[in-house]
């Protein structure tokens, strides 16, 4: 019987790691992710998790050790956030290029400077071009589930890419919620043993991994990362369906909420999706035709689903906790690209909010609504809007 326990998202991530039975974990503490390696240490110390836990001296070595272990053919896990993920940056490309299905739990946190430990998505969004799959959790249950899902997708032979699962710093990492811990047997059935076909460092059948490629081969190698990302779209749907069958919880790349007759749809990710759904209910009570959409999967980018969503709304209001300078947010860029050649397309309005842990309140969302309504009414509007900015201290 699945067990229900009240826990933080960090603990949920550690539980997911325990259930996935990685053979090697290498991690380094950083707020807000510190509890993940701490909890895993306890599991290992108590013999509940039979893994080698490498207490590395930095995140750079954490991910490097994960690459080494994954290249040797074992399931591998780590957790980090913010500066830690940034320190891994170089090796993230390498892990994807070497097609190693490592999973990282990311406690989504802002980047310095100024130093700030609170939530936004700038850390993992900044890694969107590394080739890694990216999932974002709305709550602690999703943090656990998506890590299991990430392993399954990452290790699929059609994919073989590393994956990160983001959950918002403090809003989730340190907030307790009831989480259902699935039965080990069911997880075992779902995930199975990881049996690498291409990555192993076995003296009985020596292979060379991580070579140099001249211009004659480099592009093809990078293309396979592209192709694997494309393949992942279908695999993710399959794995979501299987997960639902086994565990009873439904996931979709884009989860829609009251979008059917919506004129304005608020699009977001992570824990903000919960707030936005509530806000939509609040608007509906006033007769405003609003809906919400949540990206559970950000990489591979769910282009087809975005196009379907776009058919339903007149305005897509993108609520994002990240900045791509002089462009707006990353979602704005991605949505623009997905829709640019569509004949009928909604208006896109971008909102940068909640950076560095700034609360996103209904009042902020009202501001976004007002601008979106202007756009809907054909009035002039700014494409990119910083919401909740304290102009008086600028």
């Amino acid at each position: 019987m699945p067990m229900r326990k009240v826990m933080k998202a960090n603990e949920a991530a550690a539980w997911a790691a325990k259930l996935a039975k990685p053979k090697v974990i290498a991690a380094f503490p950083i707020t807000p992710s510190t509890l993940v390696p701490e909890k895993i240490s306890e599991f290992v110390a108590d013999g509940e998790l039979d893994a080698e836990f490498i207490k590395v001296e930095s995140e750079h070595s954490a991910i490097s050790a994960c690459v080494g272990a994954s290249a040797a053919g074992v399931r591998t896990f780590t957790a980090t956030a913010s500066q830690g993920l940034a320190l891994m940056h170089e090796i993230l490309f390498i892990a994807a290029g070497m097609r190693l299905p490592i999973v990282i739990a990311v406690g989504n946190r802002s980047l310095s400077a100024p130093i700030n430990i609170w939530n936004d998505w700038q850390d993992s969004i900044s890694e969107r071009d590394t080739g890694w799959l990216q999932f974002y959790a709305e709550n602690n249950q999703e943090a656990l589930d998506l890590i299991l899902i990430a392993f399954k997708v990452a290790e699929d032979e059609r994919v073989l890419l590393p994956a990160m699962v983001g959950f918002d710093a403090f809003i989730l990492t340190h907030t307790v919620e009831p989480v259902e811990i699935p039965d080990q047997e069911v997880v075992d059935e779902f995930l199975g043993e990881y049996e690498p076909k291409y990555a192993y460092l076995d003296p009985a059948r020596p292979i060379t991994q991580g070579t140099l490629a001249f211009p004659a081969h480099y592009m093809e190698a990078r293309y396979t990362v592209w192709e694997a990302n494309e393949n992942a779209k279908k695999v993710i749907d399959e794995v979501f369906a299987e997960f639902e069958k086994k565990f009873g919880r439904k996931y979709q790349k884009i989860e829609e909420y009251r979008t059917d007759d919506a004129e304005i749809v608020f699009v977001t990710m992570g824990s903000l999706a919960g707030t936005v759904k509530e806000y939509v209910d609040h608007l509906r009570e006033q007769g405003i035709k609003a809906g919400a959409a949540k990206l559970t999967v950000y990489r591979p980018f769910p282009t087809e689903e975005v196009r379907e969503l776009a058919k339903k709304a007149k305005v897509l209001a993108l609520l994002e906790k990240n900045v791509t300078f002089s462009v707006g947010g990353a979602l704005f860029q991605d949505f623009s690209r997905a829709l640019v050649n569509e004949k009928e397309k909604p208006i896109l309005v971008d909102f940068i909010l909640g950076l560095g842990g700034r609360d996103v309140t209904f009042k902020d969302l009202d501001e976004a609504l007002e601008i979106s309504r202007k756009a809907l009414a054909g009035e002039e509007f700014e494409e990119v809007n910083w919401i909740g900015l304290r102009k008086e201290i600028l």
Partner: protein
Amino acid sequence: MAVRKPPITTREYWAPGHAACAGCGCATALKLATKAFSEAMEEKFGDPNAFAIAQATGCMEVVSAVFPYTAWKAPWVHVAFENAAAAASGVEAAWKKLGRKGKILAIGGDGGTADIGMQALSGMLERRHNVVYLMYDNEAYMNTGIQRSSSTPYGAWTTTSPPGKYSIGEDKPKKWVALIAAAHQIPYVATASIGNPFDFVKKMKKAAKVDGPAFVQVHCTCPTGWKSPLEKGVEIARLAIETGIWPLFEIENGDFFNIKIQAPGGGAKVKREGGRVVAIEFKKPIEEYLKLQGRFKHLFKQPEAIDEMREQIKAMWKVLGVDVTLPKPEE
């Protein structure tokens, strides 16, 4: 007819066909190191192939693994420039979990070890991974075109330590990474040289057989970066030992008081006290070593720089507990 057993296995792990420069001393070092490793694995586990290699970016990596070819006949992985030690940590942890017997060999150049990879190396040694770290020391970043590293010796020309009106070339003494490694109190640390291949092989085997981390720093010539004759690699490396420039020693379990200094040969007179080398009177002047290499050519116009080099060498030996006399060339 009696068949003599070859002094070292004929098995090859670093196969011909790699793209290293002609006369590359580091390629020789890797060839010997893997052979030694194989012998150690055979003796320890009964399986000559019971090892895998994790290697840093650098000359020896790019020349050996050009897709779709490989010069490696052992399982081999390259991750990046600064993380061979961390990648090796991961491989070792995976092997432990897989119950695979054997040992991991991490390989890095002086740049990938003494500079950018120092942190990962320290972490790996401190965590006591069952890994032998081999630092092949060609005394500069060769892969990117001969830039100085912290292992570049005093006075040497490199593209980033060019001699000039206000420069004698590299102006800092060489960093002694073997001593830093030994400070981690690991089971085994040694310096070696391709100028003494039998000693190098012996040390690699010893390193491979200890349980826990070991560090070997092998001095190897780079004719391209040292501007030295292709065919004189071993001779030059040997001169480094015989003139006092390159000390050969072993430190076990971080015990600096029992540092095992080797006699350098070349006619040097060695004084011992209670089995311990306390003084060496070198017979060959360092100029014999320097003059075979274009990277030191400019020093011959500045003899005071060579004298300064002698002082630095004495100071270095003093750290090792040895009083040395270094001759000047006969006028």
